[in-house]
């Protein structure tokens, strides 16, 4: 082995950390020790690959943790602990790993803190990698992570955590997409897949399916120049059929358990798009039905907005505009949706005006450019 298998190494991180915490290590100190052990592994493994990588990491991380805990009063206890670590321990428990997920997504944390801590303590990324991914200075990210660690270090887990908190964090990471060296979408997918391997929960499967189905379209979502390619114009032949197959399989198994949740429903909508070989073959009536289900589950105005688009496809632009009529016009993308539906309804002048207005209100650069292009296209025609 000439180089270290980084994927394997990082997959072991939450389990190793969980074991240290179960043995009584303070979470914040244990997390630092695990990061140290990772650095040591990268250095030592090429020359001397361990027989049992996880046991190696536990041993090294535990020693690092003890070295860092220099309190004299703890010294005697420390030797007892060293004895314990050299003895063959009990089989690693997945509960330890799960608890690390819960802790890093604890409701005491702000979303950005939970995201950063999850990427480090569950994902095994370095602070520098996380800082680069989120385009902030490393010192800022280091503070964000250390504050987050302090916040959750003393939290006791007497009751099972709420898996929804973990899923929200993973969803946020996935949605951040790609920026810099670390592919956050791929990382979120990896962490969700890992979570699905240790907890049997239909919404975990739902989120995994949702990620797989969206990830399958990734290569076709942007043109080589970086501009957005809408779903209807994507080259479906280039969708990743293996990811779609896996996503649909995971989703079907989750739906069969009859405990519907928002991620399963979102995945079902994504699956209907993935199923259609051409945009015309899309089963929009079913898409609308799933949106109705999502409205029932989330009562989110953004969902109602997306539903209006689907209604426009299923029942015609007039029906879509009617569905849009009752919604708050200040919603993000409301004007863009209105522009699209007016164009479908044949009102090019209104559509052009609304596209220009939507471009002005866009919150992402790619979206702004896309909407400005739509306005320009209609102006050129008219």
């Amino acid at each position: 082995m000439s180089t270290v298998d980084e994927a394997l190494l990082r997959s072991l991180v939450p389990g190793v950390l969980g074991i240290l915490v179960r043995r009584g290590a303070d979470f914040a100190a244990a997390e630092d020790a695990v990061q140290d052990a990772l650095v040591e592994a990268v250095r030592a493994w090429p020359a001397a690959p361990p027989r049992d990588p996880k046991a190696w990491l536990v041993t090294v991380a535990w020693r690092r943790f003890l070295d860092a805990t220099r309190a004299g009063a703890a010294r005697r206890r420390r030797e007892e602990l060293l004895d314990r670590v050299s003895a063959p321990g009990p089989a690693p428990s997945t509960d330890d790993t799960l608890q690390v997920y819960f802790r890093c997504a604890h409701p005491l944390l702000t979303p950005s803190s939970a995201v950063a801590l999850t990427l480090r303590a569950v994902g095994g990324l370095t602070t520098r990698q996380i800082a680069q991914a989120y385009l902030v200075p490393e010192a800022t990210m280091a503070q964000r992570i250390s504050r987050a660690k302090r916040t959750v270090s003393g939290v006791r887990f007497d009751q099972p955590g709420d898996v929804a908190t973990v899923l929200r964090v993973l969803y946020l990471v996935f949605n951040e997409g790609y920026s810099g060296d670390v592919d956050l979408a791929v990382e979120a997918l990896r962490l969700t897949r890992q979570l699905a391997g240790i907890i049997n929960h239909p919404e975990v499967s739902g989120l995994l399916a949702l990620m797989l189905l969206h990830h399958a379209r990734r290569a076709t979502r942007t043109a080589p120049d970086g501009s957005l390619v809408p779903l209807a114009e994507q080259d479906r032949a280039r969708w990743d059929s293996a990811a779609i197959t896996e996503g649909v399989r995971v989703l079907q198994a989750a739906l069969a358990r009859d405990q519907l949740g928002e991620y399963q429903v979102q995945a079902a909508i994504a699956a209907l798009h993935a199923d259609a070989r051409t945009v015309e073959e899309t089963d929009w009536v079913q898409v609308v039905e799933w949106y109705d289900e999502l409205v029932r589950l989330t009562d989110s105005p953004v969902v109602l907005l997306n539903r209006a688009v689907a209604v426009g496809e299923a029942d015609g632009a007039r029906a879509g505009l009617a569905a849009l009529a009752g919604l708050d016009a200040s919603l993000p993308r409301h004007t863009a949706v209105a522009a699209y539906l007016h164009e479908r309804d044949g009102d090019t002048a209104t559509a052009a005006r609304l596209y220009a207005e939507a471009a002005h209100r866009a919150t992402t650069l790619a979206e702004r450019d896309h909407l400005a292009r739509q306005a320009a296209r209609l102006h050129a025609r008219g």
Partner: protein
Amino acid sequence: MAKYLLLKHYRGAPPPGHDVPMDRWTPEEISDHVQYMNDFAARLEESGEFVDAQALAPEGTWVRYDGEGRPPVTDGPFAETKDLIAGWMVIDVDSHDRAIELAGILSAAPGADGKPIHEWLEVRPFLSAPPTITE
């Protein structure tokens, strides 16, 4: 998470609540003002919300392309330009409300007599990358 620009103007912002120009402050008052800015930035770094802070010279040069093979044309500064940016701070925060809250704190920087200058700051969201999941 979203990034915001907190923009300070030399000129072009509405008049501040406490309108004594900086050259009429005492040197200590200027030092206190600078210290307030530095402390503010340090606290933001500590809270994991700091991205960048820069100050700009009040005068610059206007430049434009002047055709193939020709050197760029320079001009200015123009006294009539209404908007003159003094500097900025970039923050990375969890909400728009938090951006407003921080701008409010920054605007409380002390000026003459050690009183907050109530300077108007412009808060502008960054255009971000599009999210992975849109429909």
